C-alpha cells in the first residue's frame, strides 16, 4: 500500500467510525553515518525510516496515535487508539485541524549538491580529518570519536480540510574529539559542525581548531574564586542562549513556566541586544517555509534593542493569546505532540572583532566550552551553574588556561549586563531548531576553579 492509498483508506475508515476532521503527518528519512578509529572504518550505518502520526477529532476532542508500519492492521490500530486517547482527554482549549495559510513561500532547502556526495567521498573527507588530527602534534594521544553523518528528510502534512504540504531538506555533520597529554596532564577538545554545504567543510581547519583547543588547555592553572567579567566565545554563547530559548515559548509563558510572562513591550536586555528568528536563511539548518502544523513561516523580531516584542507561538498558544501564530509549531519527533521551537534564532552581531572584545577586559575569564547544560541550568528561574573550560584574560590578553571551572549566574541578569557583542555569529543546532550568537562579554559572573 503506498502512502496516498493508505491515507485515503485511513480517512475513509475514520469517517465510518465517527471521526470528523483528520490529519496525517509523516516523516521519511534517509541517513548515513560512519565512524573512524585508527585510520579505519570502525562503524558504518545507513538507514531508511518512515513514520506517520495520525490525529483526528472524535466527539469534539483530538486523539493521537502513530505507527511506523503502513498496512491494513495499522489502520485499525491508529483509529482505535486515537479514539481511546481522545476520550480520556479533558481539555479547555480545543485543537482543530488547520485548513492552511493563505500563502506559502516556495524556497528550496534541499541541497542537490549535498544529495550527490557519495559515501566514499564522505569517508575520504573524514579520513583526511582524522589523519590531520593525528599528525597535528606529538602530544595528540587519542581520538575518542571521529564521526560524520548525513541525512535527508521529507515531511508531509495532509488533512481532510484540504491541506496538503510537502517539503524536504538535508544536512551533513562532522563530530570529532581529541585527547592530548603532556606531563601527566590530560586535556580534550571537540567540534561539532553541521551544514548543508559539503564544500564548506575544511579538514585542516577542523583539525587545527580542535587540536589548538585541547593543546591550549595544557598547563592549566588556578585563579582566585570570585566574580569576573566573562567572555563567552560565540559557539559557547550560542549554546547558552539555546538552553534558555524556552523562556520565549508562549506555551511556557501561558503555563507559568517563563519569567517573561507579562513582559511584552518591557525592557529585558541591554540596548545593544536584538534577537531575531529568521526561517528563510539560505544556509540555515532550521530554514523552512512552514512549521509542523502547516502554518506559513515568517521573520520575527523577538527582542529589539533590549525590548521584548514577541513570544514564539503555535496555533494553540496564539488562539489563547488572541494573536496570530508566529509559525513555531514543532514536533520533536514525528510521533510527538506539537510543541514550540525556534527556526534560526540568533542574537544580531555587531562589528566588534573577538580580539577587540578580549582587549577590553583587564582581569576576566574567556569561556571556550560549557558542559552540563541539560542539568546545571534552570530555564525557568534563569539560574545556572555550569562546568566550563577556558582561559584567564589579563590586561587585555588571553593568558594561561584554567583548570575545569564553574561559571554561575542568572540568564535574565546576563541579558541586562551584556557589555559588548562581537561580530562573529555562530549557530548551534539546538532547542529543536538552530540557535546562534556572536561572542558576548558579560559584566560579571561567579567563577569557581577546581583545585
Amino acid at each position: 500500500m503506498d502512502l496516498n492509498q493508505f491515507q485515503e483508506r485511513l480517512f475513509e475508515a475514520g469517517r465510518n467510525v465517527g471521526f470528523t476532521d483528520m490529519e496525517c503527518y509523516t516523516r521519511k528519512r534517509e541517513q548515513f553515518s560512519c565512524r573512524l578509529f585508527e585510520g579505519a572504518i570502525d562503524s558504518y550505518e545507513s538507514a531508511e525510516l518512515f513514520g506517520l502520526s495520525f490525529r483526528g477529532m472524535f466527539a469534539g476532542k483530538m486523539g493521537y496515535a502513530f505507527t511506523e508500519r503502513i498496512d491494513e492492521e495499522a489502520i485499525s490500530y491508529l483509529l482505535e487508539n486515537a479514539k481511546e486517547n481522545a476520550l480520556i482527554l479533558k481539555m479547555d482549549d480545543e485543537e482543530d485541524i488547520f485548513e492552511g495559510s493563505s500563502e506559502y513561500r516556495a524556497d528550496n532547502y534541499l541541497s542537490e549538491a549535498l544529495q550527490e556526495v557519495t559515501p566514499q567521498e564522505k569517508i575520504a573527507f573524514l579520513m583526511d580529518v582524522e589523519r590531520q588530527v593525528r599528525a597535528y602534534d606529538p602530544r595528540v594521544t587519542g581520538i575518542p570519536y571521529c564521526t560524520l553523518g548525513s541525512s535527508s528528510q521529507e515531511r508531509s502534512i495532509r488533512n481532510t480540510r484540504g491541506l496538503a504540504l510537502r517539503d524536504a531538506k538535508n544536512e551533513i555533520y562532522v563530530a570529532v574529539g581529541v585527547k592530548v597529554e603532556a606531563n601527566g596532564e590530560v586535556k580534550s577538545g571537540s567540534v561539532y559542525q553541521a551544514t548543508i554545504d559539503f564544500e564548506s567543510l575544511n579538514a585542516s581547519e577542523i583539525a587545527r581548531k580542535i587540536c589548538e583547543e585541547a593543546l591550549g588547555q595544557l598547563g592549566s592553572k588556578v585563579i582566585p574564586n570570585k566574580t569576573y567579567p566573562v567572555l563567552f566565545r560565540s559557539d559557547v554563547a550560542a549554546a547558552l542562549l539555546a538552553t534558555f530559548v524556552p523562556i520565549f515559548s508562549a506555551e511556557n509563558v501561558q503555563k507559568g513556566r517563563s519569567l517573561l510572562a507579562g513582559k511584552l513591550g518591557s525592557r529585558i536586555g541591554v540596548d545593544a541586544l536584538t534577537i531575531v528568528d529568521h526561517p528563510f536563511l539560505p544556509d540555515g539548518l532550521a530554514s523552512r517555509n512552514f512549521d509542523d502544523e502547516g502554518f506559513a513561516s515568517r521573520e520575527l523580531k523577538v527582542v529589539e534593542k533590549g525590548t521584548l516584542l514577541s513570544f514564539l507561538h503555535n496555533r494553540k498558544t496564539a488562539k489563547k493569546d488572541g494573536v496570530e501564530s508566529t509559525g513555531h509549531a514543532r514536533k520533536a519527533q514525528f510521533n510527538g505532540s506539537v510543541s514550540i521551537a525556534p527556526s534560526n534564532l540568533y542574537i544580531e552581531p555587531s562589528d566588534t572583532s573577538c580580539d577587540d572584545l578580549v582587549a577590553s577586559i583587564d582581569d576576566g575569564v574567556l569561556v571556550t566550552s560549557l558542559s552540563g547544560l541539560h542539568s546545571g541550568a534552570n530555564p525557568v528561574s534563569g539560574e545556572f551553574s555550569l562546568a566550563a573550560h577556558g582561559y584567564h584574560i589579563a590586561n587585555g590578553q588571553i593568558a594561561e588556561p584554567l583548570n575545569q571551572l564553574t561559571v554561575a549566574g542568572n540568564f535574565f541578569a546576563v541579558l541586562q549586563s551584556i557589555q559588548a557583542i562581537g561580530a562573529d555569529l555562530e549557530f548551534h543546532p539546538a532547542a529543536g531548531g538552530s540557535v546562534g550568537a556572536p561572542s558576548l562579554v558579560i559584566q560579571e559572573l561567579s567563577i569557581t576553579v577546581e583545585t
Partner: protein
Amino acid sequence: MFAKSVIEEVLEAALSTGGDFSEIFVEDRRSNRLLLQGGKVEISNSGRDFGIGIRVYHGLNSVYTYTNDASKEGMLKAARNAAAAVQGDERASVAPLADRSIPSIHPIRWNPLDVAKSRKVDVMRRAYEIAYGYHEKIQQVMISSFDEEQNVLVANSEGTFAEDKRIRSRLAIQSIAVDGEKYETGFYGPGAHQGFEFLEGLDLYHYASEASRIAVTMLGAEPCPSGNFPVVIDNEFGGVIFHEACGHGLEATAVAKNNSVFANRIGEQVAPEIVTYIDDGTIANEWGSLTMDDEGEPTRRNVLIENGILKGYLIDKLNARRMGMSPTGSGRRQSYRFAPTSRMTNTFIAPGRSTPEEIISNTENGIYAKYMGGGQVNPATGDYNFAVMEAYRIENGKVTTPLKGATLIGNGPKTLQKVDMVGNNLGHGAGMCGSLSGSIPVNVGQPMLRVSEITVGGTKGAE
C-alpha cells in the same frame, strides 16, 4: 516474529561480501504516554515502532543498517546494503539457528497494553492530588506516565535465535513551587521492568509528597557557596555521580579504544577498600533490568570494583573482540535505530557499615546532596559535572540551611579515591542514560556516602 528460514536468508545475504559475523535485530514496540497537567489529561498518545537492524562485522569493523521496511524484500535490501560496505576475502557461513530464548526472569502480572488508559489516569490523578495538596506554594503539578511492551528478536550467524519481551512502566511527578518571582521544581520518577501492578502498588504518598517537598524547600534555599567541601551524597539517585564518574569509564566503548582512565588497570587499586561497584541486570523487575541483552546474551551480575580493586568492565560483542575478553551481557540499544554497544543496567555501590547519622555527625563543615540532578562526564579526561537538585549545608555535624544552584565538578577517578565513608542504606533510583547507542532505562544506586573533597560551584561565590 519471522520464520527461521527467512532470518537465515537475511543473515546469509549480509555475509555475501566476506563479513565474518552477521546479526539481525527485530523490534516491535507498543507504547503509551499520558500527561496530566493542572488536573487534566493533556496528552495521551500511543504508537507502534517497528523495525529491523542488521549488523555485519569484518574483523573489528562494523556495518549497521536499519529500516522499518520489514518485508522480506526490505530486510534483504538492508542486508545487501550492509554487505556492500564490506570487502572481505573469505565467505563465512550461517550456523543452524537454535532457539536460545530464555524464560523471563522479570515476572509481569498485568500487561499495561491490556489495561484501560482510564485506570492509569486514576493513579495519576491520585498522585496529582497528593502533590498539589502538599503545600499552598505548590502552583503546578505535572504527572506523566509511560509504559511499553518491547518485543525483540536477536539472531546471528553463530546460530543464536533468541526472543524477549520487555515490559516497562514509569510514573514521573514534577512539582513547581512559586513565591513571587521565585520558582523551584522538584522531581521524582520511579520506574520498573514491570506491568501495571507497578503503578498500582506504588507508594504514591511518598513519591508525590517528596517531589512537592523538594520544590517548597528550595524556595527557601540560599545561594550555594563555592569552594572545596566534603560532600555527603544520599542514597538512591545519588548514585548518578558514580554512574557518570566511573560507570561510563568502565564501559568497553571507552576502554577498548584506550579512551578511558580505567583502561588496562584490572587488578589495580582504583578506589578505597570500602568501595565495591556492581552492575547487575538480573535484579527482579528493576528499571534497568533485562533477561537478555540486545545481542542475545543473558544479563548477569558484573562486579566491576571489589574492595577498591578493579575487577572487570562492561563488554559488548564487538569490543570483546577488540579486547580479547568475553561479553558480559551488556550490549544495549535504544531501539533498532541504534547498533548496540556496552552499557550499564542497574549499577550501584554496595552497602558499607556506617549509618547515615554517623556520616552526617562526623562532618564538620560540608555539603549534603540529598537529591542529585543530572550530570555529564568526559570519558577521555574523567572530568565530570553534576547539578544537585536539593542540597544543604552541614555545620558541626548537623544538616542546616538548604542551598540552591550547587554544581559539583571534579575528576572521576580522583573523586573515587576520596570516598571515605560508605553507609548501610543502599537504594536504587530510575533514570534514562544517553550515550552512543541511544537513550536507555538504567538504575543508579548507592547507600549514603561521603567524599572528603569536591569542588562546589555556586552562585554565591567564595566565602
